């Protein structure tokens, strides 16, 4: 086995066998699924208490418009005065009392209806009630004006614009959401990967310094080989952990609801349910079909290739910087001053990615940031699903890898000198000097 393989193997095994690594690998998905389940459970608990709402309808328009549901029961009060109804409702600890007064004209209802309750009612309850009243009042007022409401409904025309590119490719809002999700996921994944495993590389370099083994090692191998071996070995361990996480999450997500009987639909908030319903109006099957078509329409080959290139390039770029920091300092506490310049472009990339790409994937800002090598992996990955000209993609990759060669050269310089420097407080000025050694 040659040196590089030996080093990669050692770094990999050392990481993978590490107790805390193993624990984190298994614990993280459990914690995440646990938190999800807990939130879902608590949410369902929150909603499960059923509400009783009394209705005092003096107008007589809403005889049976309010239909009780699982969570809400409507009670119609007859022939009570408002005072009695209020007292009664408070006594029976009802959620609220809806008072609709008798009015001479329908449009007076607009600001005459009152909802009495112990505390201020939830937004959902109020909007539900208002929806019901509004719908009925509108129908009534139309009828009074001599217009048939049913006819209006029949004649209502629903507009759905078709989206198509100049090249004749169909697009849709669903497609945009899918693209955003894909780009966002890819960018976020890279971001997390860099932070978690970049740090791991840095710690591993510091460990070699503090345990003083570094000089023994580099009397056998070139520092650049050690640096590369470390980055590759740690990355492989990272990929292993990510794959494990994905599998475990998937398994847990399937198993946990089965065991605890949590319905996936119940995990959603009412707003989400509404959204789902709205989306499902055209039929669930239709939605899925559209999803598949859209997924098919994504430039998949392009995405996969570019994802790999940007992921590897971006990760290596940052990993080499982390390694250089590790070499420059004596302990982890000294790393603070050097972390900021690394984290800043990374965070910037994610925010630029989320805000500008979502707004306009081909705007000037998005374009510029998708060429700057320190932000391009994240921003470009977010842009690509929306279709980026090939020359831009290639140019960006070339810039990224050229910069990577530059940072590795820089990192190797710092590394070569830094790993043998003990006790010297590294400053930026000191680092510049090291470059000339």
């Amino acid at each position: 086995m040659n040196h590089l393989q030996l080093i990669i193997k050692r770094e990999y095994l050392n990481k993978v066998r590490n107790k805390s690594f193993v624990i984190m690998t298994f614990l993280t998905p459990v914690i995440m699924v646990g938190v999800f389940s807990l939130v879902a459970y608590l949410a369902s608990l929150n909603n499960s208490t059923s509400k009783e709402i009394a209705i005092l309808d003096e107008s007589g328009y809403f005889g049976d418009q309010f239909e009780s549901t699982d969570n809400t029961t409507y009670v119609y009060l007859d022939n009570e005065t408002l005072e009695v109804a209020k007292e009664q409702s408070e006594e029976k600890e009802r959620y609220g009392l809806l008072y609709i007064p008798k009015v001479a004209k329908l449009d007076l209802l607009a600001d005459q209806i009152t909802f009495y309750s112990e505390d201020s009612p939830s937004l959902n309850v109020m909007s539900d009630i208002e929806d019901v009243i509004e719908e009925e009042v509108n129908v009534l007022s139309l009828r009074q004006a001599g217009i048939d409401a049913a006819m209006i409904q029949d004649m209502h025309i629903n507009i759905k614009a078709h989206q198509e590119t100049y090249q004749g490719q169909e697009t849709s809002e669903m497609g945009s959401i899918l693209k955003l999700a894909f780009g966002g996921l890819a960018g976020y994944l890279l971001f997390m990967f860099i932070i978690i495993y970049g740090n791991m590389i840095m710690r591993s370099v510091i460990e070699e310094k503090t345990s003083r083994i570094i000089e023994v090692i580099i009397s056998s191998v070139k520092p650049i080989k050690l640096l590369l071996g470390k980055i590759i070995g740690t990355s492989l361990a990272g990929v292993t952990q990510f794959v494990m996480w994905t599998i475990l999450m998937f398994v847990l997500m399937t198993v946990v609801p089965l065991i605890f009987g949590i319905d996936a639909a119940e995990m959603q908030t009412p707003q989400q349910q509404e959204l789902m319903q709205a989306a499902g109006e055209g039929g669930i099957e239709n939605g899925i079909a559209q999803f598949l078509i859209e997924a098919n329409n994504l430039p998949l080959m392009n995405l996969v290739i570019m994802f790999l290139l940007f992921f590897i390039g971006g990760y290596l770029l940052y990993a080499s910087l982390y390694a250089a920091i590790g070499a420059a300092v004596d302990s982890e506490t000294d790393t603070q001053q050097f972390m900021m310049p690394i984290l800043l472009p990374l965070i910037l990339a994610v925010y630029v990615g989320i805000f500008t790409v979502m707004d306009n994937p081909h705007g000037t800002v998005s374009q510029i940031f998708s060429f700057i090598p320190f932000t391009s992996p994240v921003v470009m990955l977010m842009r690509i699903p929306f279709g980026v000209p090939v020359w831009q993609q290639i140019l960006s990759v070339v810039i990224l890898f050229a910069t990577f060669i530059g940072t590795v050269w820089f990192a190797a310089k710092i590394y070569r000198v830094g790993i043998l420097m003990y006790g010297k407080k590294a400053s930026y000025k000191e680092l510049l000097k090291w470059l000339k050694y």
Partner: protein
Amino acid sequence: MEKLLVAQNISKNFGEFRALDDASIEVPKGSVFGLLGPNGAGKTTLLRIINQITMPDQGKVFLDGEPLQPHHIQNIGYLPEERGLYKSMKVGEQALYLAQLKGLSKTEAKAKLKYWFDRLEIGDWWDKKIQELSKGMAQKIQFVVTVLHDPKLLIFDEPFSGFDPINANLIKDEILKLRDDGATIIFSTHRMESVEEMCDHIALINKSKKILDGKLLDIKRAYQNNTFDVGLIATNPTEASSLLTDKFNVQPATFKSINDDLKYRIQVAPDASSNDLLHYLSSLGQITHFNEVIPSVNDIFIETINKNN
């Protein structure tokens, strides 16, 4: 004598700081070569250059007549002063890894490790983690890893630090045995008594320059200056002492004796012999002690460095 390692006119700068200035050393085959000098003189830099850890700005290094190349790493065993092992790795695994980095195959490495672990009676540490071992124990493993691949050239930087006297002796014997088996040894230390005991050649580096080198005996001869420690029970102590002070360069001496006698360190003129001094002393009283002062490495070290500064 054939030279195993030749370093010619080595210079190395770190920014403004000159770590080595035109330093040359020649290490004969089969010798124990002491590389001496005060802290910060440039010894470690020179050793790192020989190990190709640092590149010299100027100058060349030859191993066995060939200019130093990356593959020569396999012919060198280096025990640096700043040394350690991976704390959370097991002893055996770690030794195997380091041996393989030096170019041994796994089976070779295993066989050799078994030999050395048995020899130093540390076989049962194989599955322990380094963090469970004491410093001395870890040092032993480091020694084994350094010599495991049978290098032609062994470089030890302060090999005895961290060892108790018994283990230090054990390691010293192992080093000498390696020399007898044909290895050449470069040895850097501040423990002058070890230099005295083990080295046959030395080089002295001060302030980035080599200021002295050669065979230890030759150097001692050069520093020997007709000086003798004498003990004398004089018939008339006051008179004897004033006579001696007039005639020779005399200093008080500090050797141990049981009698209450005069003790002097006397330097005689270069053309005079020890017999002349003996003859003269015997006329003054009874001689109880007569010993030629051979300069110790310690004396040579201090004297040369002070003169150089």
